[in-house]
């Protein structure tokens, strides 16, 4: 068997792929967090819970309505996004004039509620969600076996991230968004409905989380705790990348996923903590984050 640094290539590439998958989720989630933070100035602690909700909506669509994966991929982000719009309109919007910390506390409370409700209803053991028939099976590459679904997750999340970047950087709507991030009062004075913008941005940000949840459903079992586990890592990713740049958070997400995968090969004991260790190092060397602007 071929080996690299004493590790079978099969295992190495397998873990790298797994890292890339995790990286896909880190990228989409930190992208959503960054967009929401940029405009609303709150850190959305409920992001993990809404990611979990996306996976559950996919499961429910299949179980109760018989709608399969491709329907879920479109509908679940919509449902989560609409739910997010309600949250923003009725709860979060009341806090804009207060210290940012209250936004963190409120969304933490929301995360506890959402997570607790799903745990009561569905337990903690996790529910299975099958890989769609079109994407089952895999490719036998010279150095590894590549399951089709995993390749699809990486491609889909890259596409969504790039599309989001294009919309924000290259369209008129995105220009409004960037302007409102810089100076909401001035943009409002030009006749742009900024409160509506805030609502839609939050809706879009959490819809991204819902989308990630659907992608994750066939890989990890659909579990009420899946959001809490990932959100803290995503926070570390956000601290490492800095939330100043959209592409920055995407690149950081994927890169850290890969690093985590590599750690699983060479030093498995540290795989759960490696991202936090990198965060510490980045804080020591470049406190504003790799792509951050100094405050």
């Amino acid at each position, binding site marked *: 068997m071929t080996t690299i640094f004493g590790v079978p290539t099969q295992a190495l590439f397998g873990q790298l792929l797994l890292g890339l998958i995790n990286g896909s989720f880190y990228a989409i989630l930190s992208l959503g967090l960054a967009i929401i933070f940029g405009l609303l100035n709150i850190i959305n602690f409920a992001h993990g819970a809404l990611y979990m909700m996306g996976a559950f909506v996919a499961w429910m669509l299949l179980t109760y309505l018989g709608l399969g994966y491709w329907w879920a991929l479109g509908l679940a982000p919509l449902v989560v996004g609409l739910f997010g719009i309600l949250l923003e309109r009725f709860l979060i919007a009341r806090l804009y004039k207060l210290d*940012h910390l209250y936004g963190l506390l*409120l969304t933490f409370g929301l995360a*506890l509620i*959402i997570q607790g409700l799903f745990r009561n209803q569905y337990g903690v053991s996790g529910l299975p969600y099958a890989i769609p028939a079109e994407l089952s099976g895999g490719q036998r590459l010279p150095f590894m076996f590549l399951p089709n679904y995993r390749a699809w997750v990486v491609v889909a999340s890259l596409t969504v991230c790039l599309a989001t970047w294009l919309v924000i950087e290259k369209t008129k709507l995105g220009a409004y968004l960037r302007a409102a991030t810089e100076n909401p009062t001035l943009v409002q004075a030009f006749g742009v409905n900024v409160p509506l913008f805030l609502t839609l941005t939050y809706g879009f940000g959490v819809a991204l989380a819902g989308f990630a949840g659907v992608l994750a459903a066939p890989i990890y079992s659909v579990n009420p705790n899946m959001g809490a586990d990932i959100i803290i890592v995503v926070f570390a990713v956000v601290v490492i990348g800095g939330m100043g740049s959209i592409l920055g958070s995407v690149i950081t997400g994927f890169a850290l996923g890969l690093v985590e995968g590599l750690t699983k090969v060479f030093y498995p004991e540290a795989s759960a903590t490696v991202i936090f260790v990198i965060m510490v190092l980045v804080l020591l060397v470049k406190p504003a984050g790799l792509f951050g602007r100094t405050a």
Partner: protein
Amino acid sequence: MADTAALDAAPIAASRPEGRDDKALHRKVFAGLAIALALAPLVLYPVFLMKVLCFALFALAFNLLLGYGGLLSFGHAAYFGMASYVSAYAAKHWGLTPELAILSGTATAALLGLVFGALAIRRQGIYFSMITLALAQMVFFFSLQAKFTGGEDGIQAVPRGNLFGAISIADDRVLYGLVAVVFFGGMLLIYRIIHSPFGQVLKAIRDNEPRAVSLGYRVNQYKLAVFVLSATLAGLAGATKALVFQLASLTDVHWSMSGEVVLMTLVGGMGTVFGPIAGALVIVTMETYLAPFGAWVTVIQGAVFVLCVLLFREGIVGLFARILKKPL
């Protein structure tokens, strides 16, 4: 930056300089608390009381950082839990007497606070919160994997031992005396810190950091100092808790514990001297009575969070302070 702007609950307490009659009022509250502490075991179950006291001290320590330093740490479980582990380990495997076990746990928390604090204060506002949370999660994974913590089992059947090698604290009522003394001492220390010149500078930094900088204060040193103090006292609470329940487990280092102490402080009143005690009493009572409802406790905690943030930001003691028009 608005990141470091004051929490809106705080100015109630800090709206005017404290006069002599405020100090007299506080002295009365302390006397009332001391009497309540002495009489409570006649009415209530000592283990429940000790739980309340440990969490009250934990919340007081946390509030020192949030209410007076303006720094929202979302990872205080790390100091509470790590101190709890070290104290339990020292009592069980090294056979240290309880006071030394508690001291070793507290010292560990201080050291951890020094390292994590130095890292976290490199960023402000929301980033500070995320960094403390991530560092605490690192401690959680460490506790999950390290040998000395006992992984999923935790450290069980911790001996309470003999205080100073002489007085047995196996009896709940005797141990209650020790816990009450630790709590009261911790509370007085925090009160002293808040009202010292150091505490005044902290409040100045909380209210307007650039101005404090322009006045020549080295704000980072102050922030680090209050962080270490807060972590140390949180550790004191955790280390004591390990002896009360004769158990140190992953629950103590989990992020939900960090959330719980935030909730206690929020309910009681951020930036008030006595708020965290009221908050701890309310939340521990709530959890004790709601325990049969299992996972609903999380939902209710979340709902309390949301309601407090939206409608009741001043907290219980903050409300009293407003009615009495006196800082409490």
